[in-house]
């Protein structure tokens, strides 16, 4: 039996949550690059609240619409594109929609990997991102303690990336025999 994440007594490691998120996002049909951006961001700076938010947007269609500095869309794609826009140096980006804990983690991670800081300012119907004027973010080492229902949702989507076993795959897919006495 695989480990049951609900049995954790000491929380979940950040690497473990990274792997679960990456798989859950892939299972939800999110493009790999966005999956990596989100999973790396949560591993770097995310909180339990992030996991709840991400679990809530797994079923949605992630997309981005860009009109000049104005960025709209769904899922966490707009905040990722907003960071791209700012880090490309084009201009401050206006990202429409709610700015969530997961959004904050994404901004922190992108800023840290770029070796800069990104300021997040309130704006009409969302936030404005611009370079500088914020502390360089640091990685969190805290363990996660997500709600069981959130974990179940993440696991359900992650499960969609697994391939059901056949006797052939069990015997041949990994190459080795089933018993090993020498």
């Amino acid at each position, binding site marked *: 039996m695989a480990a049951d994440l609900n049995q954790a007594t000491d929380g979940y490691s950040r690497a473990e949550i990274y792997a679960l998120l990456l798989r859950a996002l892939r299972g939800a049909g999110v493009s790999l*690059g966005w999956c990596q951006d989100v999973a790396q961001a949560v591993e770097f700076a995310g909180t339990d609240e992030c996991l709840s938010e991400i679990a809530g947007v797994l079923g949605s269609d992630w997309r981005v619409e860009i009109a000049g500095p104005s960025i709209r869309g769904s899922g966490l794609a707009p905040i990722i594109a907003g960071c791209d826009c700012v880090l490309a140096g084009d201009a401050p980006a206006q990202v429409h929609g709610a700015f969530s804990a997961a959004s904050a983690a994404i901004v922190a991670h992108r800023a840290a990997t770029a070796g800069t800081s990104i300021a997040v300012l309130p704006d009409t119907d969302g936030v404005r991102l611009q370079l500088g004027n914020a502390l360089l973010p640091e990685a969190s080492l805290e363990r996660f303690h997500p709600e069981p229902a959130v974990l179940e949702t993440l696991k359900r989507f992650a499960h969609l990336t697994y391939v059901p076993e056949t006797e052939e795959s069990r015997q041949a*897919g990994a190459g080795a025999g089933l018993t090993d*006495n020498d």
Partner: protein
Amino acid sequence: MDGSTHLPQHPLRPASDVMRLERLGAMMPTRLSFLRVLMRTLADQNAVVTRPVWDMDANGFGHAVYTLALDERPYSLVAFSQALSDADRSDRVIATAWDAAFVLFDGVPDATEIARLKANAPLQEGGRFGPRDLVLSRANKSVRLFAHVVEALRAGQQPDAQTLRQTGYLMRTTAVYGNGKFGLADRTTYCDRPALSGPFMAEMLAVWLIRAFTVDLAEHLGGRPMERALKRSLGVGNATGLGMAPFLVSHPLLLDAWFSVRETALARVLAQDEISAGKAAELRTQAQMAAEYLDGWKVPDPDAAQVIENLRGEWASFCEELPELTGHGALQTVWDKAQTGSIPLQELTFSWLLEPFGDLVDGLADCLATPFSPVLKPKMICSEVRDLIQSTAPWVLNADFEREEDQAQFWYVSEAKLEPRLGDRQREPGADRETPLDTARQAANLMRDLPDDDTPLWQFLASHPQHRAVAQRMQALPAHPYAEVQCNILGREAAPIHLLRAKLSMFGATGFDPKSRLWTRVTLAKGLPLIDEIGTEAPWLPT
């Protein structure tokens, strides 16, 4: 790359040569392999291993604790031994029980911690672990050799040296988990401790201590100690399957760090126009050691046996024709001569040339780790990305993904045991849930869609997010040329065993014994100092 960056060095070998699958599949351990790095760290820190707990019954079942201090912090290997029927003894991840289970613990565990680990460690993937548990592993006995050793010791004799050397281990680990798996400590929580900062250092420390446990257990059951030389001839076996291969694809910048270090080491060695008589003598001694190692390297697989046999012959000829090694440009001459031979000969020569020159290469070990992943450069324009791929990754354009042959295989994770597996796309279901290790295909698809104009990449990716992951991988290549295994991993001829050989060589594994194109047995820590021999010489290859 380290504090002595101004050492002269030759140009590095190009990634197009180094990162070929065929070459990776011929790699040999070097003095930069992680186990060797660990041995130097233990020696530098004057580490002392103790065994404060040995609670084993007459059948060898119970638990033990081994403890040592590094960076003035204690670490403990907690080992559990239990009864296991022959029918349950499997090296596959699908197994559910093992002869022994291990946890490398951050500190010295008290009775409560040991009880917690006792309840979880034997369950392995079914257990839960915490932030003080650094590494989780398990092992099965090599039944015949273990029985031979115990019977010999009980009879008042020593086990047969040749039999020991041939198998090389009393137990095989079948997984060594770290970095947060199943709740273990994240690597980020201990990677700033100097002794554990290198890649897989905690895992290697666990393996080296497990080796001590396997010998102690045999001596416990045999009722008397083994001779020291015999103990040293034993390592820890390892059965490695597909699970190890995806790691190399999913950690491109770490791969680049490993190979940049190796290639820089060679470049520094070859930059010496002359070497001393002492170094020349050491090279000749190591050449003889390699010959002895090759003589003892016997495997049942006929194809692998033939490769080893050919290498044995090539190495003998190569050594016979070695020039005077103290002459001007001798090392370059030797290296050039190796290039006229097979790839296995070239890779053996590579490892051999590094061996006497710890003063030039050991400091590079500090550069083997990296916390980074590829980062998108959003400002780059699309035409520049196209040029970059064509100039730094032409190999991604070689495959034709309309051809069945070029995407014959697909990687996936099985639902039942979450085990990486390889499927046949034409015959097996599941390709719609393929694990995205297909860097070449992704890059080819990116090239198909990428406009040859000045659109900023980030704007293109907003409407083509399916290309985001591979775009940033490709952007990393100019600064990280060794980041990619330069092959189409989906192609029918792409054998995963080559990836396993590369990673295991980085660990310092010896005695590669491939069982198919999908998995291999190896030995770890064979020939290395025992736990009461820290500071003594760690040989390049076990003989």
